[in-house]
């Protein structure tokens, strides 16, 4: 569970009441080993994404959600952020039996994104010890 982890809910709407409703990607939980990312940090950074519904923490496409997740990783200076959909989380839960296998599901089913800025910042010591 090292680095940031983001669990999101993907919802694909059907045409509802003659109105077209597009798909949405909603952030449910965003956390690292230390705990949950502060709602204030999320809200402030969400406001920089004009296509997001910042009150509902929702994006219209996955690319925007990924860009947002990386933006948070940059802000918090974390090297990696893993995105996991609720559907994949559920597959992971199905196979998990205890706290150890539960923790592993994020590595196993999460889609890892590398924060390039953090990678670039790695100094000489970082390179030796990574």
């Amino acid at each position, binding site marked *: 569970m090292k680095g940031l982890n983001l669990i999101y809910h993907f919802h694909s709407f059907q045409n509802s009441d003659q109105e077209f409703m597009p798909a949405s990607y909603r952030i449910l939980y965003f956390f690292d080993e230390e*705990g949950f990312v502060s709602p204030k940090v999320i809200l402030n950074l969400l406001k920089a994404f004009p296509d997001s519904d910042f009150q509902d923490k929702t994006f219209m496409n996955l690319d925007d959600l990924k860009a947002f997740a990386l933006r948070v990783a940059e802000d918090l200076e974390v090297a990696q952020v893993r995105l996991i959909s609720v559907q994949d989380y559920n597959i992971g839960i199905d196979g998990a039996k*205890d706290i150890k296998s539960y923790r592993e599901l994020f590595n196993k089913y999460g889609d890892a994104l590398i924060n390039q800025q953090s990678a670039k910042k790695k100094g000489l010591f970082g390179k030796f010890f990574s």
Partner: protein
Amino acid sequence: MRAMLDSRHVLDSVRPGEQWFCYWKTSASLWESRIQDYPKNEIIFIPVYWGFHAEENGTWDFGKYHPERDLVRLISLLTQYNRKFCWLLPLTPAPFLPNGGLPISSARTLSLSAEGMHLACLDQDGTLHKMYSFFEPKVIKYFASFVHGFGEMLTQSKGKFHVWGAEFSFLENHVTTSFLEDSSISFDQGFSRYLRKNYPDGVGLNLAVDEKKIKTSFLSDMRNLIGSIAQDALAPYWDGVQSITVFGSSPRDTIERALETGKSQTHYFKDLFESYISHRWFSTCLLTSKEKKDLLKMCLGEHFSSNEIEHRYHYQAESTDLSSDFRPYALIDVFDHYRPSVFDNNGLKPFIQDSFQWMYHLHQDLDFTPQWIDRSHHRVKFFHADGMERTLFAQMLKLFMMGQQIVLDISQLSDELDKRLQVFYLENNLKIQSVNFLTSIDLCELGEGRFITFEGDKLKTEEDKVNFWGHMFKFLNMDHPLVELDNDIFTLWRIRATSPHELNYLDVRRVNFYNPTSYKKLVSIQTQKKFAFMKVIDPIHAMAKTTPDGVEIELLPNGKLGLEFGHYEERK
């Protein structure tokens, strides 16, 4: 040695707290010694792991094949050692049981949260328990068969037994959600059957609101069905249904508890105190020794042990008059009748959260019983008119006639209730004093009773709301020390009658402060010339000093301390 014993107590998964005894977690050969470990005066609560008793052929084993399922022997041991006990029968998936307690053959569909996540909870020993849907048709069939068998076993054991139905829930983002709630395919299929049965001519679910309403009534019918199946089968022993919030069981908790840092003491304190003000009982059975340590353990022992447990299960009569024992004390009752946002919008809730921290109770319904009315007589009661029904309206007016202080937000008051209110004023010849301060306020008095109405929706800005409630509470003149403290400090007030050598006081109030954070915190208490500081009780990492206005406290990380005040009549 004492420390060793204490840690054994906490680590004990057979006895995980709140006087529970988890019989399936230990060998039946150890039951006898484990039962003897319980203090004789404590009631033992035995959760029923019904799936554990399932045999492959659809029958139930109560000891014929496995000694750990031998509930007849368990009863005879409890009786032999003269222990009071009662059964807790889960009416929902239970987060501390494998498969939520369901027999393997009926655990087919995993329960889903409203966000579509599988519900899974981490046990004390790190086992992940997955919750399975009660909406799977086989579950109800099996459940009915089990309670029938369980009832027969109790009848054959010939005794005076007590059974409580337990509805387990989790707490996340200040909202309590029953483990019965489910968004899985089993729920959807059940809902389709429900629609076909109850709306044979079809129903137009054009609006999400319509669908939500019908789903809520489906859930409510299902809850009633499960409850009535259990109640019918166990009628001679049935004591009622208890809602139990299981700490550490929400989807967010499962994530947080799996992290290296885990869920903090402060967060558990918040859960505990939110449950306390909402009058919901709780269980700490999932918590590890690391989670239930230090301050949390002390707070549970000081405020939520045997006496409080037995009050919650109505095994101890609650006397109206104060006695020599301390009892919980609050100043305010808020009734939201399932529309809590009204008190957020008119600013009451934020105000009391800030100014009367943990000194109020939030209720959805009014418990209009003589006992409750008498015991809560001193508390100011707040109602709102949005969606208010006639019965509640009439009961609220009766409370005023009985001499209680009532404050009603009349925004959204229906025409019918408005007419009734005007008739009430006329019939009782009540003089109305009207004031315009940020909104329109009407006040009438009858004996000690006060009835205040105001239009909450006219309070638009945050500043207006704080100003309005500040003046309102000044007018209501709460007889209580004024406490200034940080949000992460937790306090519990209790009250008792005076003893013969304290005759000068009206009553004695004790407050306990807990600082579960890792920071030093300061608290100031102003006694307001009505309270005399009496003594400091059991300080740990804390100190108190008196000042001309009252008392100042310094609480170090994990610090706690109690103070006692004598309440006296103000000389005029």
